[in-house]
């Protein structure tokens, strides 16, 4: 009985939530009457800059201006997806977020949605109308806002901050103008010219974080050299199978396609999803090259080179297979797999496979200097947007980005006195202390969550600032980035609200159908002779309409 009643709950719950219009206790901003005693010189605005010379820093130093907002007694509620690898750690436990509050004199109240349910809880929060002051997009990035940021501005959820940034966030503004390459600056604005989010800014293109990873000890022992062509890979996997006893040498991503980097299929000059060729948007899985890809995967699957159960593997299973020698190759993140393989083997990077030796792949995972994950936006519920903007500006001041990236000087890091220059701007180099690197209470992946901020509203030095990136992984990620070009990549385009709704409808049907078909083709339950029929079906499902939406979004992006 009870079980049956429970089963009916989800639909009911949905209605209940929407009808009653209130659920989560999203706190509202309070005007705490008592100013903080002492008000320890809340160094809010830009500060004395040590290494002068760069225009960015000078402009910020001049901003001690009359229309400065006071942060005294300001409370801001921040909705932010938290993630952790080891121990559970919330933002309020994080030393940097504590320090930011102390230095600015602002009080931040964090709300964390349940892990894995960020999108659902976000949707419910929006429907309920109980908005926090600030929303962080989490790993979902811009896709959290389905229909695009402009729609959320039009619907009175988020506010446009162009003017506020001009006035109260000079450091963010100058970081965009000076740190970011000219052609990437438009990523900070929407199609209608709104500036909505505070993106993390990378001083350079961060290295790709996904790739084909091989067991280095096996590759070295086999002495077959570095694989380059598809044939090389095939022979290598056969050697894994025959000489190393790997039951299933390669673990394919669960969908049968590497949706992140397009590994293997990029050999046929297509992308795993939408990509553009000379300004014309195309959809990879309906191209003739995709049939070639499926044919090869089907062959490998038949030869037992691909894990039989790949559609149902989760990370735990992959980890077990990689560490026990059941498999020797996987398409995944070098950081994650590198951590798995500690004590087993180092990783070797697989080059982007090509058809003919000497070819170069034209599609790969590209990260932009504007980093949408964990971007921060201000909502219409925020009573003091000036203060919110000023708080968010802090990560782009010198003091702020040192704090976010490395923690507190003297405790988690010390300056080495050296500097590194990107795009004409000098940045100080640091050395982490043992508290960060060898903390008995916090293994390194936990230390990242407590002593620094991994990604958020600041200038982010991933390569120098991520203490978890060991040399082996850094080398791999660098090679993954340099190993292919990005001529086929799509820029960060946005669909309009109307397009977005129809697009979602089309893509829902398309991907449901495509996912099944791709797995069937690879596993041989559907003959590849039917590929043309599959393309026909995809067209019936109006894939071309989705392509045209992407095309117009692409055109709008180019016209920004």
């Amino acid at each position: 009985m009870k079980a049956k009643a429970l089963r009916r709950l989800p639909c009911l719950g949905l209605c209940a939530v929407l009808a009653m219009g209130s659920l989560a206790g999203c706190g509202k901003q309070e005007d705490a009457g008592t100013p903080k005693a002492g008000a320890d010189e809340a160094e809010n605005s830009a500060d004395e800059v040590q290494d002068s010379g760069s225009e960015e820093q000078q402009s910020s130093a001049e901003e001690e201006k009359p229309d400065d907002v006071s942060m005294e007694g300001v409370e801001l509620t921040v909705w932010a997806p938290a993630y952790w690898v080891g121990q559970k750690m919330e933002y309020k436990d994080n030393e940097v977020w504590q320090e930011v509050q102390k230095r600015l004199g602002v009080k931040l109240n964090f709300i964390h949605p349940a892990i894995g349910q960020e999108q659902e809880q976000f949707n419910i929060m929006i429907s309920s109308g109980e908005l926090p002051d600030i929303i962080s997009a989490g790993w979902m990035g811009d896709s959290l806002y389905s229909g695009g940021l402009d729609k959320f501005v039009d619907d009175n959820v988020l506010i446009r901050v162009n003017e506020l940034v001009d006035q109260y966030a000079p450091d963010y503004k100058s970081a965009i103008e000076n740190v970011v390459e000219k052609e990437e600056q438009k990523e900070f604005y929407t199609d209608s010219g709104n500036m909505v989010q505070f993106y993390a800014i990378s001083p350079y293109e961060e290295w790709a974080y996904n790739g084909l990873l091989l067991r280095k000890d096996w590759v070295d022992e086999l002495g077959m050299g570095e694989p380059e062509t598809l044939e090389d890979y095939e022979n290598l996997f056969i050697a894994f199978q025959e000489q190393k006893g790997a039951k299933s040498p390669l673990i394919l991503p669960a969908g049968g396609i590497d949706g992140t980097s397009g590994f293997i299929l990029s050999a046929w000059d297509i992308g795993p999803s939408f990509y553009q060729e000379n300004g014309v948007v195309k959809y990879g899985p309906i191209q003739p090259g995709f049939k070639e890809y499926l044919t090869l995967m089907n062959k490998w699957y038949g030869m037992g080179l691909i894990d039989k159960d790949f559609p149902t593997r989760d990370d735990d299973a992959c980890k077990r297979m990689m560490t026990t020698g059941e498999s020797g190759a996987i398409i995944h993140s070098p950081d994650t797999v590198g951590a798995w393989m500690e004590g087993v083997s180092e990783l070797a990077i697989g080059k982007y496979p090509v058809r003919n030796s000497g070819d170069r792949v034209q599609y790969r995972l590209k990260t932009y200097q504007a980093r949408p994950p964990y971007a921060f936006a201000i909502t219409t519920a925020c009573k003091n947007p000036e203060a919110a903007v000023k708080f968010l500006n802090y990560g782009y001041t010198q003091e702020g980005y040192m704090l976010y990236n490395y923690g507190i000087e003297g405790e988690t890091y010390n300056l080495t006195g050296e500097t590194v220059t990107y795009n004409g701007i000098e940045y100080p180099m640091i050395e982490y202390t043992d508290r960060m690197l060898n903390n008995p209470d916090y293994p390194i992946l936990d230390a990242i969550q407590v002593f620094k901020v991994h990604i958020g509203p600041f200038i982010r030095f991933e390569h120098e600032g991520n203490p978890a990136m060991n040399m082996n992984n850094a080398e791999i990620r660098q090679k993954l980035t340099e190993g292919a070009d990005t001529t086929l990549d799509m820029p960060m385009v946005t669909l309009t609200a109307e397009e977005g709704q129809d697009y979602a409808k089309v893509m829902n049907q398309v991907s449901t159908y495509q996912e099944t078909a791709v797995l069937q083709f690879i596993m041989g339950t559907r003959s590849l002779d039917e590929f043309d029929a599959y393309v026909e079906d995809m067209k019936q499902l109006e894939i071309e309409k989705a392509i045209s939406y992407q095309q117009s979004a692409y055109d709008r992006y180019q016209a920004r």
Partner: protein
Amino acid sequence: MLKKIAQDIKKYKSVYLMAVPVLLFYIIFCYVPMAGLVMAFQDFRPTQGIFGSSFLGIRHFTDFFKDMNFTRLMRNTFLLNVYDIIVGFPMPIILALLLNELRGKFFKGGVQTAIYMPNFISMVVLCGMILDFCATEGVIGGIMASFGAEPRNLLQDPALFKPIFVVTNIWQYAGWNSIIYIAAISGINTELYDAAYADGCGRWKRLWHVTLPGLFPTIVIMFILRIGNIMTVGFEKVILLYNPLTYETADVISSYVYRRGIYEGNYGYATAVGLFNSLINFVFLWGTNRLSRKLTDQSLW
């Protein structure tokens, strides 16, 4: 009339007072949300609310009927329930009858605790176990291998999804669902058993002529209620167990509503599909109730 009610309330104050929370529960969680059904006919935008969203008419419904997955969703939802009723419905009854025949108190208690247990295991954990059991190198694969069969991943075979779903449902719920039957059995007058014993009935005959007839009204009511859910499958288990290879036989209305509604934020459409689903359920409930009243004099209302 009103006066009579007022008198009644005065007389049985405490009873009415006890009913208040239950009534409130139904009003707040069952009746008030019904207003939200309006979304089924709207181009619902969360940011504009029910009053600000524009009216669409029945477009969500026609969209759903024209959806390429429509027949597949209907078929899967219906069949999963039919299998579950055929195989799963008798199980708690059989269990209750068996438990009733047990005499050893400790043994009986132990068995009962053991069979209730799966009901309390979190769905995610339970489905994780099922996934492991069904993997190529899982327990079942191992047993298959020892009989010389080629082990394979059972959850990648569309033909096996429904059997796995139904059988594991029994594992999960049969014990728990047997409670109501055990309660009903214990309510049967023991004099009937004594009389039957005096008339020379053995165990089997007593079960057949005393226990089952005594249990019959409960079974009928439970059956009607179950039929009322003929188009309902909880989405959690389906979503945790299916993969693109088994969409064909595993995708049901609720998992589809989950993908379209919650994940994509298309609430209007999801509500429309949910409403349609409830309507079918209601028709079945009403039909079975009528049929049952005609045939057995047992009915819900």
